[in-house]
């Protein structure tokens, strides 16, 4: 079957997946192109296991319009007294589904500067939580793409319920504004600097978790509003002689709950063969406590916000990992030749966390196939 026919058939069968649009439509012949991606994501820690298969389809038209769809299932297995209502930890399973649709339009300003506009809608649902996410973004490329300016706005509208209380229903809304500038410093080096602001309003606690005031458990109660700021930078440099990419990433975060976090990261990407890349990464994260955190219990008579959320307490994390990307060109000239344009990826990380959630493992296996 010729490529355009196969593309249209897949587009009709799958109503899927998001993000990314690396494949280029063929403007000369006027045909659509696209990309099919599938990943199995896995996270394991002491009391929680997450399995999250994801599928994505992106289609590019020859007239500068991309259409993408994304679908994932988040299968969470945890041991919890609060959620199961039993006298001891028992395993329970949660299932979250998320679907997203995205449109991207590529155009130019009258002066010829490339302009990309995008809009995305996502809907996530599980039996006690629903989230609607609206995103708009724009990228303007200047100076023959030596400078890219990015702006994005995201609005999240969540409904929080509780399996333990059918009368419980709260809302949570967040508005996030992202800005970034990426500059080509020279033929081998790029620098990105950005700033993110997020305003969160509404219920931000966990309806199942309890905090101790004296000897007695009380439902968590977080402040209704949270203002969040982050400044980030990324420096990428290619050592062309050895085929090594060096990436330095840094993020500083502060918020109105008095949390300050620092987050440096180093990634090395090594081309061992045109079809085989290996990446190594190290990420460090450290933060202080929110102002209303008290451990192990709040004093009798405490009247302010209460929490038992480990991620709001002082802690640090280390993430060490590796990634392998393999292009499947060795399938060319075989009966599976249609895979020849594709690639597979395997990642593995060890995640060390000093807060009560504890250490974990992160793994991903997946692939992408141009359409």
């Amino acid at each position, binding site marked *: 079957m010729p490529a355009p026919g196969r593309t249209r058939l897949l587009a009709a069968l799958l109503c899927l997946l998001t993000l990314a649009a690396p494949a280029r439509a063929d403007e000369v012949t006027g045909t659509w192109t696209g990309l099919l991606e599938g990943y199995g994501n896995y996270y394991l820690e002491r009391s929680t296991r997450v399995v999250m298969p994801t599928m994505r389809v992106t289609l590019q038209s020859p007239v500068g319009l991309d259409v993408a769809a994304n679908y994932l299932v988040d299968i969470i297995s945890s041991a919890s007294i609060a959620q199961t209502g039993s006298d001891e930890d028992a395993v329970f399973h949660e299932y979250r589904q998320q679907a997203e649709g995205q449109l991207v339009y590529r155009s130019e300003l009258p002066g010829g500067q490339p302009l990309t506009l995008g809009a995305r809608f996502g809907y996530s649902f599980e039996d006690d939580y629903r989230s609607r996410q609206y995103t708009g973004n724009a990228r303007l490329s200047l100076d023959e793409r030596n400078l890219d300016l990015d702006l994005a706005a995201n609005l999240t509208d969540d409904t929080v319920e509780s399996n333990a209380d059918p009368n419980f229903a709260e809302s949570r809304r967040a508005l*996030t504004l992202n800005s970034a500038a990426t500059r080509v410093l020279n033929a081998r080096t790029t620098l990105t600097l950005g700033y993110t602001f997020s305003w969160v309003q509404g219920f931000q606690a966990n309806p199942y978790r309890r905090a101790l005031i004296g000897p007695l458990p009380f439902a968590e109660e977080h402040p209704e509003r949270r203002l969040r700021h982050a400044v980030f930078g990324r420096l990428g440099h290619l050592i062309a002689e050895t085929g090594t990419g060096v990436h330095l990433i840094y993020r500083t975060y502060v918020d109105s709950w008095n949390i300050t976090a620092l987050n440096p990261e180093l990634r090395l990407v090594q081309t061992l063969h045109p079809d085989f890349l290996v990446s190594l990464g190290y990420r460090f*994260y450290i*933060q202080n406590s929110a102002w209303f955190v008290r451990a192990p219990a709040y004093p009798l008579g405490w009247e302010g916000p209460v929490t038992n959320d480990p991620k709001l307490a002082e802690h640090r994390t280390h993430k060490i990992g590796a990634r392998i990307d393999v292009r499947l060109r060795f399938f060319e000239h075989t009966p599976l030749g249609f895979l020849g344009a594709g690639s597979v990826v395997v990642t593995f990380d060890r995640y060390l966390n000093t807060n009560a959630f504890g250490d974990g493992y992160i793994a991903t296996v997946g692939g992408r196939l141009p359409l």
Partner: protein
Amino acid sequence: MNRLLRPTAACLLLGLALAQLSSCTHVAPYEREHLADPALDTQDRERAYHRFAAHIYEAREGAGAVGLSDVAGGGCGCN
């Protein structure tokens, strides 16, 4: 007040850095082969992985996914 000064200072530094960027080397389109090298141009290829990693940070770290490029936080009751 000190907490407000920190993001303000960060924004000023960001602005100064951006102002300095105009003095960088101009790379013509025909000179961009290294910039397209997969060892340097990783964002698209690694986007799916970083999105899952951000999902974990959102559930396990106080800063969550705020300030991570191309990721919008939230979307689940992973609190």
